[in-house]
């Protein structure tokens, strides 16, 4: 069993059992800063050995995909899940953007099984964070929402600053410059990710009530969307962009994951009339566990056929 998943499960159980276990907010904040920076730095260092022309086609593809996903899922959310247009736009943005922790878990999962992955995946992660949120804002404006302009916040949110900043620093310093940082940002990564997952389990456990209110249609959406997006991502990654099976699996995971940090914050301000509990509950309490427990192993098996 994967210790990351066991710690996540412990968090969920502790919260459901009403344990007094909770992380102080500054610790949670520090853990997320560490994870984002570590992913960025390690990606940048690996990228420093890479020819940039190899990165361009997949980079353009993920920006397009991230921007397109909300437009694809919006009609489903509005007509099938029966959300009003503001709620549908807000939830759609969550699914266009990505989950950094799902990415980290999938990377660890493939690494443990010896599946090689292209070194530029963290660049794709950083690039795919914002376009989905921008698309969600456009959908909300088209639906008549009158929220604040959030473009500045979307583009300089801490996720993008730390990921992109880490990548640039990683490219500049290369393996040699990274060596003194490796004990902290390399060796400790898995352990700190485990701590973060314990906290995330606590948060997900606390969202059980939201799920009951969200209803079966939204829960179904939270399961079927990553399943379908994952398959599409696998196909695009493998047959159109020409990634290795490991790279196609990671692209599929990016497409299947939903944001529960950047998107909720941005959409709260961009579409204030939308119910913020819907997007975060679907992304965090349904899609995140589904991806971790079912979809990543499933994509791994399907990737083996490529």
């Amino acid at each position, binding site marked *: 069993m994967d210790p990351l998943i066991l710690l996540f499960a412990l968090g969920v159980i502790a919260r459901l059992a009403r344990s007094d276990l909770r992380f102080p907010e500054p610790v949670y904040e520090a853990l997320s800063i560490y994870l984002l920076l570590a992913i960025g730095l390690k990606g940048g260092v690996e990228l420093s050995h890479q020819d940039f022309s190899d990165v361009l086609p997949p980079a353009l593809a993920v920006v397009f995909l991230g921007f397109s996903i909300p437009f694809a899922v919006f009609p489903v959310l509005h007509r099938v899940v029966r959300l009003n247009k503001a709620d549908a736009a807000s939830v759609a943005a969550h699914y266009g953007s990505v989950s950094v922790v799902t990415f980290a878990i999938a990377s660890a999962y493939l690494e443990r099984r010896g599946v090689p992955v292209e070194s530029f995946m963290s660049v794709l992660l950083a690039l795919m964070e914002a376009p989905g949120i921008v698309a969600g804002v456009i959908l909300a404006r088209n639906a008549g929402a009158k929220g604040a302009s959030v473009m500045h916040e979307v583009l300089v949110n801490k996720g993008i600053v730390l990921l992109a900043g880490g990548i640039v620093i990683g490219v500049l310093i290369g393996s040699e410059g990274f060596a003194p940082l490796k004990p902290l940002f390399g060796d400790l990564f898995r352990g700190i990710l485990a701590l973060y997952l314990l906290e995330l389990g606590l948060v997900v456990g*606390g969202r059980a009530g939201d799920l009951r209110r969200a209803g079966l249609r939204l829960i179904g959406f939270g399961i079927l969307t990553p399943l379908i997006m994952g398959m599409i991502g696998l196909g695009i990654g493998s047959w159109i962009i020409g990634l290795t099976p490991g790279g196609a699996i990671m692209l599929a995971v990016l497409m299947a994951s939903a944001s529960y940090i950047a998107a909720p914050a941005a959409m709260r301000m961009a579409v*204030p*009339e939308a119910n913020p509990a819907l997007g975060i509950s679907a992304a965090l309490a349904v899609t995140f566990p589904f991806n971790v427990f079912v979809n990543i192993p499933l994509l791994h098996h399907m990737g083996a056929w490529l």
Partner: protein
Amino acid sequence: MTATTHRRCQLTLIAEYMLESRLIAVAAHHGAPGYTVHEVRGGSFAADGERFRDGAGETGRTIELKVICDRPVAEAIARQVLDDFGGNFSVRVMLSDVEVFRPAKY
């Protein structure tokens, strides 16, 4: 010896964390002399399904912002906050009388 004190108004806003920079901008716009802000936790037992603010994630965090100023300034800030954010965000607005020692500061 009794210290001389002066009456001022304290505006207290309890609101979603996401609103912090916007609330501060409203206070500055109306001429508030300064502010204090800190994070708090809390919830609502209202039957209208209002969200329990559990502190998880940025959208679940809550701040308390205090401004000490003259009453007309406090009222102007309160009115704009309620107009701009009262409809769709969790915001509580309170005014209270306080006594200060150095009136020039407020």
